[in-house]
């Protein structure tokens, strides 16, 4: 076998702390290595051309590139060797950047380590053989999980692109956080006026099936062919029959149900439609507060419903759906503001969250758009906004910046002046972060045109005095303590990962970071993909985002799905298990252990043998390490290939000790 080794400088990223020329020189001494050189940027066009030339010139059978992590450029180099006429699996990578040059300062030690990694890759390559991908059909339907603005955008783009879309929303209406907003920054246009039409499009689009009040229960399968079970939670109302007329909500005597849409300022009826523009506009019964369901008495709604839609006996229903791709747009939750005890959130009625304030500002909110203090219903005069509540604060485990709080606070300060011209707003801030288009101008307007007083400093405590709240903090620009007599305090709460996000990630087999936000495949170059093929991310489930970013990402995820579905058949990854019929004794242990049910029993000349179902095998290799006979081998990660690497690393010491 003739192997070519290419050691990449990666500019100074590798060459700075690894003697790349020495690595190439040592590589030349390895068995089977016919050619070795160092190259400035192996992944660049001249770098790749150099590899192709060398393959042709030296008639190479396989290539080792020592550069960055294979998670970055393995596909790039596989295509390169393929262009030179080799099988793309006759290629190995030695990770001498992330695992060597970037983590060690000692050049000599780094060079030794790099030489070892190259030798391991070359040893594995001598055991490699060419693999050929097979094709399989794809199911061109897509599931969008989450009906916020990112999910809505993704669903509409996919549906307009001709795909059949299944949109699953946990609550009884789509719209997400955006539907709760009064106005949006920096244009101050009405949130529901721009979101509303999109929500209606979802309801009316012939290609979209909407499951509201439903959750994803189980996900099986692989890219192109996912089998998903959706749990449609009981609404106790036949949504086919319900017209959303709202008569039931007027007559319901139980008025203590949590008004989730209005952020729990006030209550709603046990049977309710979350808000007037809800999609679908259907009634849902809250079983915890419905008198018929809790005590068996009442049933008023059933009597007056003109379409006889009430079904008290309704049960959760499981629906099976098959799709080829999944877009996750499950959004975020707000930080629990009661964790800041010194701000008195939860204790003082007039300390509220920004989203609650948003509902107070909204004409469709519980106060009809009039700003009233929750405690006594009076109009506030001094409104204090406190930023970074649950953002940029290590002490509450939220060291990251939530990104949009500076902007929505500026917006709310402006709106406060619009609603109450006599009022005065104060904003306690750490830094102003306004990096979007027209964003900085907007915060300046809040200060200069609307007279909002920005105080740089943290609030140390809030305490009541009479019917006022005293906000005590520091003004770090003035170097003094300040006290503000506030009528209303609004906490600009930060964003955190949605509750249950890790559980869904486990079902989807995608990674999440230490805060619960889903991890993209590459933070810069693959921002909407996950490491699971066919699963894409949109919106704040990946990290806090404002509306334009969420919409942009929703469209990006949709375009990824459309790209995936632009082919009728997908190529399967040939790095899957293969059974050696002669060795297989038909014990069935592999069948038992395979998590995907990808191995089945077959009859071979009257004997029981294992058989891999190629389209289902995911290439984990659990079967390979289970098989007592070594009969089932994961291609490209066979026992021989891995042991070849072990031998390079460890055999040496044995041989030396023989001397």
């Amino acid at each position, binding site marked *: 076998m003739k192997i070519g080794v290419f050691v990449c400088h990666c500019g100074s990223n590798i060459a700075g702390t690894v003697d790349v020329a020495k690595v190439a020189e040592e590589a030349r001494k390895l068995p089977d290595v016919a050619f070795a050189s160092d190259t400035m940027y192996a992944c660049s066009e001249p770098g790749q051309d150099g590899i192709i030339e060398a393959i042709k010139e030296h008639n190479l059978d396989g290539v080792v590139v020592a550069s960055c992590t294979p998670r970055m450029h393995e596909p790039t180099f596989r295509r390169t060797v393929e262009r030179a006429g080799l099988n793309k699996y006759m290629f190995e990578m030695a990770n001498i950047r992330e695992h060597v040059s970037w983590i*060690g300062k000692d050049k000599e030690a780094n060079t030794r380590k790099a030489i070892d990694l190259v030798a391991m890759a070359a040893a594995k390559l001598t055991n490699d053989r060419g693999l050929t991908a097979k094709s399989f059909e794809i199911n061109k339907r897509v599931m969008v999980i989450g009906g916020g603005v990112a999910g809505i955008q993704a669903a509409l783009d996919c549906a307009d692109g001709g795909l059949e879309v299944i949109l699953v929303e946990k609550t009884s209406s789509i719209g997400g956080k955006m539907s709760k907003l009064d106005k949006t920054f920096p244009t101050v246009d009405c949130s529901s006026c721009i979101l509303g039409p999109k929500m209606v499009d979802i309801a009316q689009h012939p290609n979209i099936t909407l499951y509201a009040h439903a959750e994803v229960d189980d996900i099986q399968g692989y890219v192109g062919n996912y089998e998903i079970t959706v749990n449609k939670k009981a609404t106790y109302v036949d949504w086919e029959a319900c017209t959303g007329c709202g008569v039931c909500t007027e007559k319901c005597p139980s008025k203590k149900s949590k008004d989730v849409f209005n952020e729990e300022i006030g209550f709603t009826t046990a049977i309710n439609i979350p808000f007037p523009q809800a999609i679908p506009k259907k009634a849902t019964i809250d079983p915890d507060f419905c008198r018929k369901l809790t005590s068996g008495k009442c049933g008023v709604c059933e009597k007056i419903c003109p379409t006889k839609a009430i079904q008290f006996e309704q049960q959760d229903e499981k629906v099976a759906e098959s799709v080829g791709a999944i877009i996750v747009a499950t959004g975020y939750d707000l930080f629990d503001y009661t964790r800041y005890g010194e701000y008195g959130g939860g204790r003082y009625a007039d300390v509220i969250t920004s989203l609650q304030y948003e509902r107070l500002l909204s004409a469709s909110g519980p106060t009809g758009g009039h700003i009233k203090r929750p405690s006594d219903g009076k109009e506030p005069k001094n409104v204090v906004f406190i930023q970074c509540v649950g953002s940029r604060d290590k002490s509450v485990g939220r060291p990251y910046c939530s990104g949009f709080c500076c902007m929505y606070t500026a917006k709310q300060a402006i709106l406060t002046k619009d609603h109450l011209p006599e009022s005065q707003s104060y904003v306690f801030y750490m830094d102003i972060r306004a990096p979007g288009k027209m964003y900085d101008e907007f915060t300046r307007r809040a200060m200069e045109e609307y007279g909002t007083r920005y105080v740089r400093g943290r609030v140390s405590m809030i305490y009541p005095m009479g019917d006022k709240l005293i906000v005590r903090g520091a003004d770090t620009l003035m170097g003094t303590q300040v006290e503000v007599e506030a009528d209303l305090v609004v906490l600009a709460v930060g964003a955190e990962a949605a509750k249950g996000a890790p559980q869904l990630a486990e079902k989807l087999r995608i990674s999440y970071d230490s805060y619960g936000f889903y991890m993209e495949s590459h933070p810069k170059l693959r921002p909407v993909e996950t*490491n699971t093929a066919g699963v894409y991310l949109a919106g704040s489930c990946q990290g806090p985002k404002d509306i334009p970013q969420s919409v942009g990402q929703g469209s990006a995820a949709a375009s990824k799905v459309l790209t995936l579905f632009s082919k009728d058949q997908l190529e399967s990854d040939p790095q899957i298990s293969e059974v050696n019929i002669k060795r297989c004794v038909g014990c069935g242990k592999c069948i038992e252990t395979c998590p995907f049910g990808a191995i089945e029993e077959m009859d071979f000349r009257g004997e029981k043998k294992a058989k891999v179902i190629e389209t289902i095998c995911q290439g*984990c*290799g659990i079967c390979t*390490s289970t098989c007592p006979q070594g009969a089932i081998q994961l291609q490209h990660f066979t026992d021989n290939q891995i042991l070849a690497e072990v031998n390079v*690393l460890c*055999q040496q010491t044995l041989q030396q*000790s023989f001397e």
Partner: protein
Amino acid sequence: MSADAATELRIVGFLCNWCSYGGADTAGVGRFQQPTDLRIIRVPCSGRIDPLFVVKSLVNGADGVLVSGCHPRDCHYSEGNFYARRRLEALKSFLPILGIDERRFEYTWVSASEGQKWKTVVEKFTERIHELGPARKINAEMLAEAKAMFATV
């Protein structure tokens, strides 16, 4: 190619592609400095790791073997890491029977985001191996002894 025995020992790492290998990459991207003794072998899943690989490394002269996979319930292949845990736990109790100090073997869970944790894992394990010192290597004397034993059987 041999490591300078005084400063560097031979530690073999078997890492799953999705979590721990990613975590090691994250540590690299974050420029978290680590000892250089460890060489990593990438496998698709910790469930792919045959205890044989660990034993073979140790018998052939590795001073330490570190296995790392996804956190329980966070496996890219649903449950590969549970298989790994069972096998490796069993292996741990067998190592002393093979005459291998079980402290030379360790398995951990590190996710792709935990670059800092990976650095700590590498540092701690390397430190432990250095405390244990180089593993006993098979030499001519031992081979002769083994041959003699066989002859008596």
